[in-house]
């Protein structure tokens, strides 16, 4: 009986997906191609400027990374890949790279799951959800430096609200949040999740609001339950939105700097010291431009490799859902 029901559900889902795909297909393919060309033509001036603004600095950065350039030193020598070799054999920088990777993986995963969770409840157009949507903007509208300072005060072991309320609840109230590696990580991840989950949620709310109602209704009529509808239909149709949120958050998480600098300063020890903090010290405290450029290029390469990889994984995951 259960297997029959499963088959029925799968057949229903397949029909529903085909219906959704058919709805999104253009009626006249040639007309679409011409329209596409016109779009490209219209976009080209902006695109050229954008390329000049992004590619040119990247080329400049690469050229600097091959020198021992220092901001106030007039002599700049070509050193080839010496900077890269030094970075890739420096234990403390490799540690920073691990810290960065761990942070990005943790916060992006938590924010994607939490964002999707909130979006499920908030996408329906009700008055309460409109208020909630407006409130969601607040955390990421606050400057990261300001939120880090506020968090530092909240987590103060002597006067902070966090320990105070934990004490009221009968929980340990003497936690030195930023003096212990584990709790410092909890604080950093907590701050990032607080600040950026609403961003993910808003993207996904927009996505869910744009989903065609028919496939969902059809699945419901065919007897699919809420989880099945979400897993086999909503999630798949949401994939482009999830992809956008995933890519944006991954890039943003790689660039996180203020919260590390202000909340933990990389401590305790160097347990929360990411690449960005190291780049800041080399570039903006010692002004060793060549070396700092090499560090930035390595980070850029990591992001450039990771972003399409994530999209590919997501695409494969959603394709696998198709029966």
């Amino acid at each position: 009986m259960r297997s029959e029901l499963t088959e029925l559900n799968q057949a229903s889902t397949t029909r529903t997906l085909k219906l959704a795909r058919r709805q999104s297909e253009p009626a006249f393919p040639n007309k679409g191609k011409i329209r596409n060309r016109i779009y490209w033509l219209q976009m080209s001036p902006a695109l050229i400027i954008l390329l000049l603004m992004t590619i040119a600095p990247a080329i400049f950065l690469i050229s600097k990374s091959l020198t021992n350039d220092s901001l106030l030193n007039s002599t700049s020598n070509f050193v080839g890949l010496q900077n890269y070799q030094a970075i890739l054999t420096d234990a403390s920088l490799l540690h920073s790279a691990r810290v960065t990777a761990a942070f990005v993986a943790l916060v992006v995963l938590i924010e994607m799951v939490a964002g999707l969770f909130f979006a499920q409840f908030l996408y329906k157009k009700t008055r309460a959800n409109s208020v909630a949507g407006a409130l969601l903007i607040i955390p990421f509208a606050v400057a990261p430096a300001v939120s880090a300072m506020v968090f530092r005060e909240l987590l103060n072991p002597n006067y902070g609200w966090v320990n105070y309320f934990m004490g009221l609840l009968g929980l340990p109230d003497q936690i030195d949040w930023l003096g212990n590696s584990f709790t410092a990580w909890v604080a950093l991840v907590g701050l990032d999740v607080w600040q950026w989950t609403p961003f993910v949620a808003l993207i996904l709310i927009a996505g869910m609001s744009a989903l065609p109602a028919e496939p969902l209704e059809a699945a419901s009529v065919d007897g699919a339950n809420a989880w099945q509808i979400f897993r086999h239909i909503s999630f798949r149709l949401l994939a482009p939105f999830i992809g956008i949120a995933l890519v944006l958050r991954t890039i943003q998480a790689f660039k996180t700097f203020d919260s590390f600098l202000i909340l933990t300063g990389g401590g305790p020890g160097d347990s929360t010291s990411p690449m960005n903090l190291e780049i800041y010290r080399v570039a903006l405290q010692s002004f060793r431009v060549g070396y700092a450029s090499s560090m930035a290029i390595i980070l850029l390469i990591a992001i450039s490799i990771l972003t399409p990889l994530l999209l590919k994984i997501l695409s494969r995951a959603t394709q696998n859902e198709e029966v």
Partner: protein
Amino acid sequence: MIQIKKEGNGLVSKLRLSVIAVLAIGLVAGVTPSNAAQKAPKQIRILYATAEANSAAVQAALPSFKTKTGVQLVMDTMPYGALQTKVFAEFAAKSSYYDVVIVDTPWSPALAQNLEPLSGYMTNASLNNLVPLNSADFIPKVFYDTAVYNVKKPSLHYPKPTATVDAAAIKKAGFDVYGLPVQANALALAYRKDLFEDPAQKAAFKKEAGRALTVPKTLDEFAEVAEFFTQPDKKLYGTTLMAGTGDWSTDDFKTLLAAYGGDGYMVGNNQELNFNSAAGVRALTYYRNLIKSGFTPPGTTSASWDEVATMFNSGLTAMTMNYHDLKLDASIAGGVIGYAKVPSANSEGPHFGTWMLSVNKYSKNKEWGYRAAQWLTSAAQSTAMLSKGIHPARNSVYASAEKLPDANLAAYYKTLKQALAVGAGRPRLTNYGEVNAVIFTMVNNVATGKLEPKPALAAAAVEVEKLLVSAGYTVPK
């Protein structure tokens, strides 16, 4: 023909003489500031630190310069991080926009070649006619540590750091003056005077320690008093320490290093890694033990100078060490603060970090820039800034400071002067920021108990050596 030739030779000789004379005048004019007064500009632009060097006090003094000279002083201020980037960017671009720039000591080794050497200005009477320079009035240690560099080898400190300041003698020794000290910060001990003078506390301490309760002068006494006052059930701890990851914990460490007889500069003139020493081990062990014993409040291993000020001001600790005067919260009835020099072991060298006003080498108004810096750092102006809490670098100003009606501030100034006279600054390294990061990470690792002092110091020495070599230094083995 011969006559003509002779006339021609005479003309050539005259021309040669004229050219030599013009070149000589040009050379002299290029090396030293001209005696002829430079035309007064409409304004002199100053780049200054917002909080770290008391911009409010200096801002209040700006109008007096216009009243005296007709030249307006326009001051832009920035917070520390942005200021450092701005200063370096201005000099990298050889910008003449700012005539006078504030410089923090860690930046000076890299910046010195972009700052105007001032010994010629200091000895030129016509440039010091607004107010007497009186260079001998500067606290020698502060002046030499802050402003005197050998630009060919900026890692060198002036060999006679306690000699009376004399621009000619500095020049003769192969150094020059690259600014005038404007704000002199030094680590000082602050304590709850009301608690130390409380008869009940005195009796209890006498019973416990077998001696009178006094303000600690030695590190052993400091630990003993800190232990005595530590009563977590009453929300009271002995002392604060700034053991968080940041410049502050390096400064705590180097103060203790000097107190145990080590080199308070940590890295020598020739890049000797002096912090990795027996004194370094003792300093770190003492530091770690104070925290481990619970004589410091929770949060010590993530505290900076801001947090420890809050801890002390709110009555959480009986003692603290910081770089400015403190004010107890109004809720602490009868609370009074006393100040003293930081306790020592067999030597002393509280950390000091001073700021100077330097003239931009690329400025078009260098003479007036010097006049402005000289005016703002003069004894008269520094005295006027006292009520706003400036930390002067002149002996005569401290004489006035101790007579201030604000007893707390007067007491602080008395101690600050003593601390400045014996303080130790930073090593002169172009990549001090990176070296500092290695050291404060090491100090924090010891403070949290993650590493033991001796191996931590050895590992930090390896890291620092790598950084120094990468910055072009040769580290002696």
